């Protein structure tokens, strides 16, 4: 069933990523980690559909926020990040997905590992934790190209300053800030050992990002003693156009 959402806010997160907030009157509610399908339709009836992770926490205002990264060869993402205006209507279907989700009833430690725009569904989990006021301890390991590519930077910083049960580690792959202790590079076993929950605490891990990133991070978690059934993954391919 396709629903109609009205664009009520637009926010540029970086030079290539934009958050679109939709008001969807008949929205049934969602769980952090789920995604929606968005459909665009041309005047002649041609349509294109892509999936986007929900960035916003579940709420009572029938609002759904998605953050879309513009892909240079994309068909849908350039429209969503450059053309869409406040007041436009967009069609969407969802929420979809019941596996890569974090529910506010979960009390075990949570390990989030994001690669690039893979942060989006994990941000929904963090926001969901905040709005529900629960105390499940969260750790986020966020691998990103360079400081300028960080999504939700200020919000994440404010949150981890205010609440020490949400800890935040960045790993820069291409360019790190000047005084950064770790040289630019991919996530490796040493970083996993130093910054993620010890496996004997029984954390549930959520790993989201491009396929090679997820393959690598999930294998490292598994190798460090985490049970595979406690590691949930969501991958997107280079042409997947999915956050």
């Amino acid at each position, binding site marked *: 069933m396709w629903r109609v959402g009205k664009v009520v806010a637009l926010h540029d997160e970086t030079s290539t990523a934009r958050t679109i907030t939709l008001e969807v009157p008949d929205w049934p509610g969602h769980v952090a980690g789920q995604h929606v399908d968005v459909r665009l339709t*041309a005047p002649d009836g041609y349509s294109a559909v892509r999936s986007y992770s929900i960035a916003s926490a579940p709420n009572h205002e029938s609002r759904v926020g998605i953050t879309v990264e513009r892909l240079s060869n994309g068909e849908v993402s350039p429209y969503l990040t450059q053309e869409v205006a406040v007041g436009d209507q967009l069609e969407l279907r969802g929420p979809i997905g019941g596996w890569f989700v974090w529910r506010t009833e979960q009390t075990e430690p949570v390990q989030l590992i994001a690669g690039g725009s893979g942060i989006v569904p994990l941000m929904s989990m963090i926001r969901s934790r905040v709005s529900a006021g629960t105390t499940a301890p969260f750790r986020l390991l966020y691998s990103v190209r360079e400081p300028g590519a960080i999504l939700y930077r200020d919000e994440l910083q404010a949150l981890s300053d205010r609440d020490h049960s949400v800890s935040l580690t960045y790993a820069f792959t291409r360019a790190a800030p000047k005084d950064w202790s770790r040289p630019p590079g991919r996530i490796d076993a040493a970083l996993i050992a130093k910054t993620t929950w010890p496996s004997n605490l029984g954390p549930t891990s959520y790993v989201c990002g491009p396929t090679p990133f997820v393959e690598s991070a999930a294998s490292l978690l598994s190798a460090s003693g985490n049970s595979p059934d406690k590691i*949930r*993954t969501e991958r997107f391919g280079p042409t997947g156009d999915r956050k």
Partner: protein
Amino acid sequence: MSIVSRGFSGRRSATDATLPPGQYLTTDFPVLSAGPTPHVPLDRWEFTIKEGTDVLRRWDWKSFRELPAETITADLHCVTRWSKLGTSWEGVPLDTIFAGVRTNSSYAMMHSYGDYTTNLPLVDLMKKQAWIAFRFDGKDLAPEHGGPARLLVPHLYLWKSAKWVRGMTLMPEDKPGFWEGLGYHIYGDPWREQRYSGA
């Protein structure tokens, strides 16, 4: 009736006509799995057919690879909307796997290393519609794409083509597998766009 998106023209290509509704073409091979990739050593690999508590058939890697295999060219359609056309595989048809098996069951639950499951009607596995595939594009199947061996049932959405298969259980009634129990369609025909249950 869909709403026209102001200023959207889209990017059409000649191949769109040959794709199931709502799909777009890709030339790479994206990976979608719910968890880490299992690595299954060949000397511990096995494939079984069970019904209730009975084991009807069992193969180890050596006896499985002695079964006659064939090359397959197939179009793949993923529920996340990418399609990949003309992919090349090598595998054993399920007709061969089932040879001599007598059953009154009408459905099968596929089981994978890593505990993934997916359900299929038995008729969809017969008549050269499904294979246990172990080579892709002339090479041994990589673990992230389901190696050592995966189900290939290309006329259904790709989540039905379970990776890392270890066996199947025959069932008198249809029951949902992993994704089918999480909101995805019980059957999953891409040409009828059966993506989600009731959505």
